[in-house]
């Protein structure tokens, strides 16, 4: 069975032609893979390497370098809580506990239904709203008990 759907293959090929050099689309292509599969497996990286006509090792070195890419699936909703200096001063420790209790998981673990995972993240560029909360790469302002409880309602 192929790793990607025909639609997904088309998107990946699209990244090879988006910029003046095909390699310039690689990080975006891996971002797409991460979004679809919630991780980048060696099989997926291998197919991306074929599409980009690059050695597997080149693609794998990129896939394993950047924090956005994971080798095991994240939750469908990937939640980040900043523990940078401003957010730590604003009580990120407490909000980490709240996330742990709300989802019943440790950082980087995915709930058994595959819906959620959470992780501490480095500065999210929202230091005036610390501790900053991020859901699927979208900033959500300051993390509060109520806001975290409401995440459970996400589909």
């Amino acid at each position: 069975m192929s790793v990607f759907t025909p639609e997904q293959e088309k998107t990946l090929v699209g990244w090879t032609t988006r910029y003046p050099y095909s390699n310039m689309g690689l990080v975006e292509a891996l971002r797409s893979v991460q979004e679809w599969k919630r991780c980048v497996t060696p099989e997926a990286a291998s197919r991306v390497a074929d599409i980009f006509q690059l050695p597997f090792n080149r693609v794998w070195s990129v896939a394993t370098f950047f924090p956005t890419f994971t080798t095991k699936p994240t939750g469908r909703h990937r939640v980040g809580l900043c523990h940078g200096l401003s957010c730590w001063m604003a009580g990120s420790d407490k909000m980490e506990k709240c996330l742990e209790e709300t989802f019943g998981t440790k950082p980087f673990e995915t709930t058994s239904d595959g819906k959620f995972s959470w992780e501490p993240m480095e500065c999210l560029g929202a230091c005036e709203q610390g501790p900053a909360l991020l859901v699927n790469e979208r900033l959500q302002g300051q993390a509060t008990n109520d806001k975290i409880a409401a995440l459970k309602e996400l589909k």
Partner: protein
Amino acid sequence: MTKIVTKHFDEPKLHELETYRRLGGYQGLAKALTMDRAAVVAEVEKSNLRGLGGAGFPTAAKWKTLPGEDKIPGPRYVVVNADESEPGCFKDRVLMARAPHQLIEGLLIAAHAIGAKETFLFVRGEYQNQYDILEQALAEADAAGYTKHASIKLMRGAGAYISGLDTALLETMEGKKAWPRQPPPFPTVAGLMGKPTVVNNVETLSMLPFIVREGGEAFAKIGSAKNGGTVVFSISGHVEKPGVYEVPMGTALRDVLALAGGVRGGKKLKCVIPGGTSMPPLLEKDLDLKLDFDAIRAAGTFLGAGGMIVLDETVDTVAVAHNIQRFLTHESCGQCTPCREGSYWNEEILERMLDEKGTAEDLANLTRVGENITGKVICALGDTVGVVTRAYMSKFPDDFKKRVPSNG
């Protein structure tokens, strides 16, 4: 106080083309396109604009290191650095979300000035909301014909702080892991895909429409000597009103803090990080310091990217140094041994001290590790690992001594 890039921030629809144009938007670009390239560069040179992404390098001087088409024919590029990931910095986020057209206009002016037909805007992946706003603004700019002489393409990052360093940014854009390059050659000579490339910060480029419209001299006059115009501080930590504040270059630290409402809850100030957590802190005695690149440097630290964090008297600076070092350890690209290993050692020692398990040698070890990193590594992240903990140690010796057993 004079404002330039945040001047119209009370306009709710500033992000839309119509509003931006009503307020004089794209007049700078129109004017630039009637000037020849050298005249635009000359205007920017007169303005004393300095790079606001961290290094403070004079913008026109950087542009002038780009070899002419006679020396290196073929494409040349402008890359917007919107990776903003230094702890304490969030001004680029606000500038992109509130005034995306101002950035686009500035970028198009820069493209004209250096003769680039293609430009790229690299945004950190965690700014997806802001990316959407930029994409929308770009569609408007395309439809209005502003991108006829130079195209703009968006690209997103993948969560690495080091991607914000210019040469690592270029590696990321080329589809490689973000290992900084060892210059020379500098990006203006051999940048993206080996082509001459100017990398500029969001805020730097956002200043250009004003400079071209009003003239370089008008911009220079707003700032201090050799530091033209304004700077946008993003202020967080123990202040009453955290947020972004634009002030003329050379404004006293005391006045900047007053804009943010001063130290929260009437507490006493312990220190102020002036430009993001890589920059050593300033103290109460520095409150009259006039903040520009050169004055802050003379005071032993850096303006950086204006990410100001205010710490009150309750803060333990050993825990602060540990938080900063933990970040640097996580973000070290691992290419140079002193940075990779030294980061790990520093973090381990600081952690031990916090856990009440400090040893008598720990302070000497922190000093020794630091001394063996700075100047022996490829990039400024490693240099920071070498100096930042030592800066807290020398400014707050009591906090550190408390954490280790005295040798009697």
